[in-house]
C-alpha cells in the first residue's frame, strides 16, 4: 500500500460532503429523546394508579365470565418500549424480516397494530416510521421487514369514529415494506407507543386545537388508477428532489384513485415556482398539476 493511497484514504473522508440538514437533524433527535425522558418521568408517577387499575381489571376478568369472553382474541399488551408525542416524524423498532402486520384493533382513541411470525405474536416490533401530515390531517405509517398483512389491517372500517376518517394501504416500492395512510376528520395530537413481548405499535389520538384553516396549494400528479403507477411517480419526484423531499407522499383521492404529491405551498405562485423547479430537475415527462385544498379536504380526482 503506497503512501499516496494511504493519503487518499485519509482524504477520502474529507471528500464526503456533509448534508446541510445535519445540524437540524441532531437537534431534533435531542428534542425527541428529551421529550421521551420527560414522558417517562410522568409515567413513573402514574405507575401506582396504573397498578391499581390493573388489579381492578384482573379481578374483573377472573370474576366476570362475560368480560373474560369479550377479551378473548384480543392480544394482550406487551411491555412499553417507548411512548413519544409525535412531532413531525418518529421511528423505532428493530430490523426484522418476514413478519406479518396485524391483527389490527382499535378503540375510540387508540389503534393497535400487532405483528405475527408464523402462528404466534412477534416479540419485537419491526422498524417503523410514522410521519405527520396536513391537508388532510393524516399520518403515514411505514413498516419495514414485513411480508404479509392480516385481513383486519386491509380495509378497517372506521365509520363513525371520533377521529379517523379512513385508513388504507398506500404503496412503497420495496417488497419487504408496507405503508399505510390514516386520514383524520379533525386535527389530532398523536402519541406513538412501541410495545414488546408481544410486539405492538400503538397510535394514541387526542383532539388538537385547530390550526389555521387556510387552504394550501398542492403540487401533485394527476390521479392514477393503480397504486403501482403512483409509486413510480413518487420515486420520480423523490429522485428529482435528490431524495430530500420531506413532503412527498402518495394519497388516495376522492374517487379511489391514487396520486403522488410533491409538496404543499401557501400561495399558487410558490407552487408554480416549485413545478418549474421540478421540471428543470428532470421531471419534464411527468404531468404535474396544482390543486387548492382545505385542511380537511380529501384530494380531488383529477385527470389530464
Amino acid at each position, binding site marked *: 500500500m*503506497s503512501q499516496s493511497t*494511504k493519503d487518499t*484514504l*485519509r482524504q477520502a473522508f474529507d471528500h464526503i*460532503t456533509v448534508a446541510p440538514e445535519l445540524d437540524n437533524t441532531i437537534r431534533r*433527535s435531542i428534542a425527541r429523546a428529551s421529550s421521551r425522558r420527560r414522558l417517562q418521568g410522568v409515567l413513573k408517577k402514574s405507575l401506582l394508579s396504573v397498578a391499581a387499575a390493573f388489579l381492578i381489571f384482573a379481578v374483573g376478568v377472573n370474576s366476570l365470565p362475560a368480560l373474560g369472553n369479550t377479551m378473548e382474541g384480543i392480544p394482550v399488551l406487551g411491555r412499553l418500549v417507548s411512548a413519544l408525542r409525535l412531532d413531525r416524524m418518529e421511528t423505532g423498532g428493530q430490523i426484522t424480516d418476514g413478519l406479518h402486520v396485524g391483527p389490527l384493533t382499535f378503540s375510540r382513541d387508540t389503534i393497535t397494530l400487532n405483528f405475527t411470525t408464523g402462528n404466534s405474536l412477534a416479540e419485537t416490533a419491526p422498524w417503523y416510521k410514522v410521519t405527520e401530515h396536513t391537508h388532510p390531517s393524516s399520518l403515514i405509517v411505514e413498516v419495514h421487514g414485513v411480508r404479509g398483512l392480516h385481513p383486519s389491517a386491509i380495509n378497517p372500517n372506521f365509520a363513525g369514529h371520533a377521529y379517523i376518517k379512513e385508513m388504507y394501504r398506500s404503496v412503497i416500492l420495496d417488497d419487504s415494506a408496507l405503508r399505510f395512510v390514516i386520514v383524520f376528520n379533525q386535527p389530532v395530537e398523536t402519541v406513538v407507543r412501541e410495545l414488546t413481548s408481544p410486539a405492538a405499535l400503538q397510535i394514541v389520538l387526542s383532539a388538537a386545537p385547530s390550526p389555521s384553516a387556510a387552504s394550501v396549494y398542492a403540487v401533485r400528479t394527476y390521479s392514477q388508477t393503480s397504486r403501482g403507477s403512483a409509486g413510480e411517480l413518487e420515486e420520480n419526484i423523490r429522485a428529482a428532489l*435528490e431524495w430530500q423531499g420531506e413532503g412527498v407522499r402518495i394519497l388516495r383521492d376522492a374517487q379511489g384513485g391514487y396520486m403522488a404529491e410533491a409538496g404543499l405551498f401557501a400561495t399558487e405562485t410558490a407552487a408554480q415556482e416549485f413545478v418549474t423547479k421540478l421540471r428543470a430537475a428532470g421531471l419534464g415527462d411527468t404531468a404535474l398539476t396544482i390543486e387548492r385544498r382545505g385542511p380537511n379536504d380529501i384530494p380531488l380526482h383529477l385527470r389530464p
Partner: protein
Amino acid sequence: MPCSVLAKPKDPDHCLMYRAAKTLLGGMSVTLVEKVARAKRGDDQAFADLVMSRQEKLYRIAYSYVDNREDALDVVSETIYQAYVSLQKLRQDEYFYTWLTRILINRAINCSKRRRTGERDSRDIPLDTAPTNRESLLDLYAAIGRLPREQKTVVILKYQSDLTLEEVADVMQVPLGTVKTYLHRALKELRLELKEDDQ
C-alpha cells in the same frame, strides 16, 4: 464538601483530586468529563455541545458505511437518540466519544444491511473534484465497501477518522493485536483490489 473529577468543586484550587485530574487529563478532557456529568444530570445543552462538536465526524463515519445522505442522517439521528436515552449506562465518562462511536458503528452496520443499493452516491463527492480523482475516489470507496465488516471498520476509523489503533481497539472492543491483524489484511486486500505495487 467532597470533591471529584466529575464535577468542578466550589474551590477547585484546594481540591487535590480535581487538580491532579486536570493536570493528568489536560483541560479539554476535564471539560469533556464535566460536560458528560452535566448531561447525565439532565442538561440538554451540555449533551448538545458534546455531540455538535463531533457532528461532521459522526456523519462521515456513518456515510462511509451507508453510502448515501438519507441513511447517513438517519444513522446519526438514531445514534444521538440512543446515546441520550442510555447515557446513564455510560460508566466511564471520559470514554464518551468511544462509546458514541461504537453506537454509531452498530447503527450504521445495521442500516447498511437493510439498504437496497450498494453504490455510493457520486453527487456527494464535491463538484470541484477533478474527474480522474473522482473516479479514483469511487474505486476506492467501492474497494473499502467490499472489505469484511471488521476490516472496513478499522480502515474507516484509522484512516478516515484519524483514531489511533488503541482507540480503534476501544471502539471495537477487541484486543490491539486483533486490530493490527484486521488492518494488515485490509491493506493487503485493498492493494490487490486496486492492483497497486508496494513501495
